[in-house]
């Protein structure tokens, strides 16, 4: 949710620092082929002119059939652990991951949803306001790939059209053997149809997990900065965005803060 605030705390760990734009998994199904940050974005970052982006928490929602490994994927990335035992997620859970992208702090709130049908009515309440929708499937179970279309549809229903980055992620890559190419070809085809970026990962070995989330973070960050720049240029034409700062009325110098002069001047 755009208005929420991440806990800005100590510096982020070194492997959450993103300086160059992370690459796609396959050019056959990716959201963009650029290998550098958008010009406007790098410029804004260099000048430290990224507005509220550093304070925001971007929302990532992970959906998909039960037992495809959504929780394992998130835990591998956020806690660097892998648990062999299956434990169904009850309703929803979340993790916060802090990054530093192009020198600017940036946080993802990653929502882990239950794949079990009986929890769908609870989990779906958490779909809205997402910047990223990750639809996961099990590379060794074609049925779960077939179901991704429905999962995506459900998640998109709660969001503005075009507001979310979509990812189609095949899990359990370590278990994939002979039929690998066939499954991946089908997944790539489906990803293109969904206008999603395709990745295949293994939470067990950790393969591609960090690369994938770095890609998610960078793309989300870039869009957030671009949107912020656009909003502020609009705000400049209007009369500030006084909504963001509200002072308590007992402050003697309240009137100063109602004036936009100190906001959006660049």
């Amino acid at each position, binding site marked *: 949710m755009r208005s929420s605030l991440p*806990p*800005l705390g100590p510096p982020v760990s070194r492997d959450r620092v993103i300086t160059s734009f992370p690459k796609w998994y396959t050019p056959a199904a990716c959201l963009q082929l650029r290998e550098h940050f958008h010009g406007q974005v790098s410029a804004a970052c260099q000048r430290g002119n*990224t507005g509220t982006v550093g304070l925001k928490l971007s929302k990532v929602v992970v959906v998909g059939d039960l037992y495809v490994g959504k929780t394992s994927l998130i835990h591998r990335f956020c806690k660097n652990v892998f648990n062999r035992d299956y434990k169904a997620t009850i309703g*929803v859970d979340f993790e916060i991951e802090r990054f530093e992208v192009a020198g600017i*702090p940036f946080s993802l709130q990653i929502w882990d949803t239950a794949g079990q049908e009986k929890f769908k009515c*609870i989990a779906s309440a958490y779909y809205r306001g997402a910047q990223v929708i990750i639809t996961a499937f099990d590379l060794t179970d074609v049925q779960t790939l077939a179901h991704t279309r429905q999962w995506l549809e459900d998640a998109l229903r709660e969001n503005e059209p075009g507001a979310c980055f979509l990812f189609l992620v095949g899990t359990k890559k370590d278990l994939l053997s002979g039929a690998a190419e066939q499954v991946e070809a089908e997944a790539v085809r489906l990803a293109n149809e969904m206008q999603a970026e395709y990745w295949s990962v293994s939470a067990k070995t950790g393969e591609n997990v960090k690369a994938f989330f770095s890609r998610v973070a960078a793309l989300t960050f870039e869009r957030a900065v671009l949107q912020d720049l656009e909003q502020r240029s609009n705000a400049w034409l209007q009369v500030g965005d006084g909504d963001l*700062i509200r002072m308590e009325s007992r402050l003697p110098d309240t009137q100063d803060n109602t004036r936009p002069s100190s906001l959006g*001047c660049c």
Partner: protein
Amino acid sequence: MEEPPLREEEEEGDEAGPEGALGKSPFQLTAEDVYDISYVMGRELMALGSDPRVTQLQFKIVRVLEMLETLVNEGNLTVEELRMERDNLRTEVEGLRREGSAAGGEVNLGPDKMVVDLTDPNRPRFTLQELRDVLQERNKLKSQLLVAQEELQCYKSGLIPPREGPGGRREKDTLVARANNARSNKEEKTIIRKLRDRGGFVHLGDKSKPPDFRTTDAGCGRSSSRR
């Protein structure tokens, strides 16, 4: 008196011998026991010799024993019959009960209903809304925990000087100022301090909506966001 076919077997199991039958409860008595008693009594009468009074008594005793035999046989037959009748009724009742519960289930339940075993400790018993509430509460607590952990991290790494702690951070909804980026770090810090010292604070977003983060620490947030 006819000898019933079971006599040999019974005698084998009867360790007390023919005399044992006299020590039994009258309700446990079988025809065999009556034969044992008559054997014992006959033997004793024989020992008394051939006095005609003894012979007289012997006829009466035989008659009494015959009556006893009839009664015992009759009684045992009745017990056996009653026992069989009881068992039949029991099976009948069980059958009816089973039919009844199955029929009752069909009558009460629609296609989307299910039966809950109230003695099952794992039976469903919480509502969806209760689960929703618990999850929301959990999420709220988790986010507070994360905030607290980060804050602790700030103290540990010296981002927040310890002395600033209690005084400057009384407000739980502490401020997060989103100020002009062109300002210098120093200027911002001063503004935040000023706000804090006056007890005023800045809100961002709607505080009523769980489960996202609502509070963060200004001192901590600033220092890390403007490195």
